[in-house]
């Protein structure tokens, strides 16, 4: 049985820290009780309390002294409350600090708008030099955390609340997730030999929806993206455009500043449709899927987008 993203993070970091004594774990009172890192490495675990800005900046001081701080708090508090600290730490200083942000998107569900974060990718993507990851499932989270620790580069890793998924690919200990993971790809050769619509999934729920959509529409390709910063998206776009022209990007984020918007700019000869949260503020209760549906993020919305993409493609060169 798979672990949730945040549980997989905690467990993997605890394992890494057994061999790497420079790894420090910082929490801001939302790490849950019984953190395995605290049990295994109490001298390197710090619950700093409800002080997100101080936590990020103190991690900067720790990194300057040669440590690898991993810090975690809910996505709205990391990406928005501490945004200025992230800009300076992860961006300007390129400090080797990793921010792990659960409760991304609307996984906070009935906790309400204060606990939702549909803006984090836009904020972090606009800060140069930050590696941004939204892993799907336990194995992918473990691989991303290992890579963050190994590289020593600034990372922002978003995850959901408690949902547990099986990753598309089991990564070996040393493997770095590729920019594009093909769950299914129509066509056989290189070039635009497939007219199939390609679903592009981002994050846990985007990937869940894309997998469901492909089961309902089996001739649809599905490419899953792990890394969402500009450099990785540029590589992903090159790979995607080699095989397809029509894309439906599914992401639990606002359209503005999300992956679809970036891919549309990176693939000017292709048609990119976005299935994302719009301009609404979900202000009612419900579970995660119900809140997503209120935002227009559900299977019917994805299938409708696939249908529109299938019928509406106009090659740029033909128009010219």
């Amino acid at each position, binding site marked *: 049985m798979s672990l949730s993203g945040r549980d997989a993070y905690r467990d993997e970091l605890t394992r890494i820290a057994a061999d790497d004594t420079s790894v420090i774990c910082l929490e801001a009172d939302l790490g849950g009780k019984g953190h395995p890192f605290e049990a295994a490495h109490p001298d390197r675990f710090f619950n700093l309390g409800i002080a997100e800005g101080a936590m990020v900046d103190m991690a900067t*001081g*720790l990194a*300057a002294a040669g440590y690898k701080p991993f810090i975690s708090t809910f996505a709205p508090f990391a990406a928005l409350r501490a945004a200025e600290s992230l800009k300076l730490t992860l961006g300007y200083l390129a400090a080797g600090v990793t921010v792990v942000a659960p409760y991304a998107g609307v996984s906070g569900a009935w906790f309400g708008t204060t606990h939702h974060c549909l803006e984090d990718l836009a904020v972090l993507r606009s800060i140069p030099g930050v590696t941004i990851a939204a892993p799907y499932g336990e194995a992918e989270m473990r691989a991303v955390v290992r890579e963050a620790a190994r590289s020593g580069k600034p990372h922002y890793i978003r995850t959901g609340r408690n949902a547990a998924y099986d990753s598309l690919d089991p990564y070996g200990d040393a493997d770095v997730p590729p920019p594009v993971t093909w769950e299914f790809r129509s066509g056989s050769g290189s070039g635009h030999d497939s007219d199939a619509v390609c679903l592009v999934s981002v994050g846990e729920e985007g990937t869940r929806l894309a997998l469901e959509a492909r089961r309902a529409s089996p001739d649809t390709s599905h490419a899953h993206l792990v890394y969402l910063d500009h450099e990785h998206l540029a590589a992903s776009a090159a790979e995607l455009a080699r095989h397809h022209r029509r894309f439906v990007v599914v992401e639990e984020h606002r359209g503005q500043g999300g992956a679809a918007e970036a891919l549309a700019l990176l693939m000017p000869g292709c048609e990119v449709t976005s299935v994302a949260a719009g301009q609404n503020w979900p202000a009612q209760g419900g579970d995660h899927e119900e809140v997503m549906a209120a935002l227009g993020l559900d299977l019917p919305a994805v299938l409708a987008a696939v249908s529109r993409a299938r019928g509406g493609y106009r090659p740029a060169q033909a128009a010219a």
Partner: protein
Amino acid sequence: MTVLLDTPPTVVETDGDAEDALFATLSERAVQARRLIVDMAASTRGCHLGGSLSVLDILIAALHRASAGDGTEVVLSKGHAAAGLYAALHVSGVLPENPAPLYGLAGHPYTGHPGPKVPGVRFPTGSLGHGVPYAAGWALARRIGGQDGLGIAVAGDGELQEGLVWETCQVAAAQQLGNFVLVVDRNGGQNDGYVEDISPLHRLPERFAAFGFEVAETDGHDLRALTAILSADRSAARRPLAVIADTVKGKGVAAVQGKAGSHYVSIDATRAAKWKRAIR
């Protein structure tokens, strides 16, 4: 000097002549640095003159403490006093080149707020409040590694209006960071006027004490007192230290000393030469 320390500060025992020589050296550094700051006020950009002059003696003393080589890190959190920091780093021997002729110019790192491209500067400051947790994080790193050395943050009294400062004080006390020192350059001024008129800091020493800090109050232009406090052995301390240093905005330049209007100053070369000659 008012001291509310667990252990009173001690000055390293030296013979009187050596001690006099040290403070003569530090005083001379301060004079030279003040002249450099005036040079930067006479640049095409001007500079935050008043706060640079008020914090200068604190920086001279703190950099002297760091020169012990035990891993002490000094962070100027009130980054708008960059001119003061550049000058202090230069006269203390940390920054080899004279920053004054290059201040604010394209192709050189001496911007209006300091960043890590300047030798001797690790952290970008100027967005107020951040230097305090940077230094606290540094202190935590030294403690985790079982190493000596302090994390010294130098903040302005106006800067204490930032919530991040108090957030960090809460954390530093909870983590028992005895090797974290927050020096407050209490010059009484801020951008738009006097701290007292905009957002006064009531009962500041008691406030730090309530957070769990040791507290020392001193004349922020008394290099002997500052050096004594910052040189104290804090290896066994369990409470962070707040040093409230009373200073004068524009200290050392009679034309601006004590005036709120000294916050940001741009002058011509003739006036700069006159001011520099008068600095003693």
